[in-house]
């Protein structure tokens, strides 16, 4: 295609975006837009699927039948969400198996929060409340993302996730009003997950390489720092309500901006975890790779069976 044509198409494309017209799979789109979306959607899908592991770690040890069922249903939802998202990525031509192999080879990333271990039952509360809470902050604006299939997948995900954060907060509330051992467990989990949860919104705006273009394309609607601020402002009163202490001595209400000022985030730790040095990076990817390798013969068998049956039918 001639360069002049591409310029023209790009202009038309941006015009559509500016008018809030959704982009659909077969529409012309700039390569960079497609690539950005594939990267973001598949990272998002991987995060859902890897995110099953830290919580999956406590399903067999859940303290009662109700908690066991709720946690199972929640982790199952994450699998569903991963699937909706892989399905959205496939509309852009990203083959699911290839995408997953990129995760297993370390080429593709996922949310770093899932590289932290879940050490006690209270972590199920902290993860549901903080991690899902932060994820929802991120995801609600994505329901209006310019790419149709991604936006529609997010609508579905957000609808289903509303119970996730609540069940986490319910676990925490119960613990925080329980025995001293339970309170201690809750505070400890909160201490460990608070900062990593803040890091979930990604590097601060000054250091974020993708933000500007993504905002212009309406893949992103808020900057990382804006979302982080919204999360802090929403979460601090919740923690105070159930009597947990925010592990940040610098946290204070700022009357001018009508929001909380919070302490410095340890970005060193963030980049270390992104780079592979989180406490569980290896375990998480190994577990996913093992699931695929152990299931390879099953996938092959089902395919062989389907081929045999369709051969029989047409014979």
């Amino acid at each position, binding site marked *: 295609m001639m360069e002049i044509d591409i310029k023209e198409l790009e202009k038309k494309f941006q015009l559509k975006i500016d008018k809030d017209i959704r982009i659909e799979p077969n529409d012309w789109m700039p390569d960079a837009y497609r690539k950005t979306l594939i990267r973001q959607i598949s990272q998002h899908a991987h995060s859902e*699927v890897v995110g*099953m*592991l830290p919580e*999956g770690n406590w*399903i*067999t*040890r*859940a*303290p*009662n*039948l*109700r*908690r*066991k*069922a709720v946690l*199972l*249903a929640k*982790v*199952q939802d994450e*699998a*569903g969400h*991963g*699937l909706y998202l*892989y399905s959205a990525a496939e509309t852009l031509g990203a083959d699911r198996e290839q995408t997953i192999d990129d995760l297993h080879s370390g080429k593709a990333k996922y949310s770093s929060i899932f590289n932290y271990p879940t050490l006690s*039952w209270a972590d199920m509360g902290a993860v549901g409340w903080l991690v899902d809470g932060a994820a929802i902050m991120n995801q609600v604006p994505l329901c209006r993302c310019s790419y149709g299939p991604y936006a529609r997948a997010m609508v579905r995900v957000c609808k289903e996730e509303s119970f996730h954060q609540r069940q986490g907060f319910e*676990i925490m509330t*119960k*613990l925080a009003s*329980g*025995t001293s*051992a*339970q309170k201690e467990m809750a505070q400890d989990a909160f201490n460990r997950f608070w900062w990593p949860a803040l890091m979930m919104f990604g590097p601060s705006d000054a250091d974020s390489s993708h933000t500007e273009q993504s905002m212009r394309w309406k893949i992103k609607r808020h900057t990382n720092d804006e979302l982080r601020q919204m999360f802090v402002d929403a979460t601090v009163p919740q923690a105070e309500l159930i009597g947990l202490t925010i592990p940040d001595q610098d946290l204070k209400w700022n009357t001018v901006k009508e929001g909380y000022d919070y302490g410095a985030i340890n970005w060193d730790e963030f980049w270390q975890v992104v780079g592979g040095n989180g406490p569980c990076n290896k375990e998480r990817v190994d*577990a996913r790779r*093992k*699931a*695929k390798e*152990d*299931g*390879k*013969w*099953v*996938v*092959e*068998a*089902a395919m*062989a*069976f389907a081929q*045999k049956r369709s051969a029989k039918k047409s014979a």
Partner: protein
Amino acid sequence: MTKKEALYQYLLRMGDDSLILGQRLSELCGHGPILEEDIATTNISLDLIGQATLLLEYAGELADEPKTNDELAFLRIEKHYANALLVEQPNGNFGDTMMRQFLFDAYRKPLLEQLMQSVDKRLAGIAEKALKETKYHLRHSSEWVIRLGDGTQESHSKVQASLESLYRYAHELFFENEVDEILLNEGIIPAAKTLFPLWEKTVTEVLEMATMSLPKNNWKFQGGREGRHSEHMGFLLAEMQYMQRTYPNMEW
């Protein structure tokens, strides 16, 4: 043994079958061969935990000293669990998991169908709800047994091996003792001998479609129904009971 004691025992058997199999399947959440199957297995696990919740709740009300379903699920000693040995067997490979499920579902479905006619209305009600779920489980597990059996050479030999090792545990599902005698006379439960041919028919049909053959080894393990479990059971319970044992008498 009174009727009440017998019913308590019987509900424990059913409740524990559901609980322990549900617990086993829950270990797999996040580790399935493909996402779609991960979701399906978790659904089955959720159904079974739901059944256990209802069955153990009813059992708890009939206990000498009334107990909650959570107390029964999490605070008994190993000897007091009455599940069949089959359901406590480890997940093994996917073929083992599906074969264990299939052998169980093929028994559970006719059992629930007949329990719907029970003179005990509460048990009949639980059976009605559970039957809808179990029909789906049986379809799922039998379809997989057929796919694996008639899939590749590798899958055929793997799932045949699963059958060889698990078949020996299946006959215990038809265990009967004084409990059954009492409840049968009261019209509360069906006789095992009416269930066995139905189970056998399903198993034979599915294995035939799967191009598999019944094991030659006719040995029948039993013990679970009387509280004599396999070595695997202690570890399963240690994990499942961890929170309740470590932090006694707390609300979660």
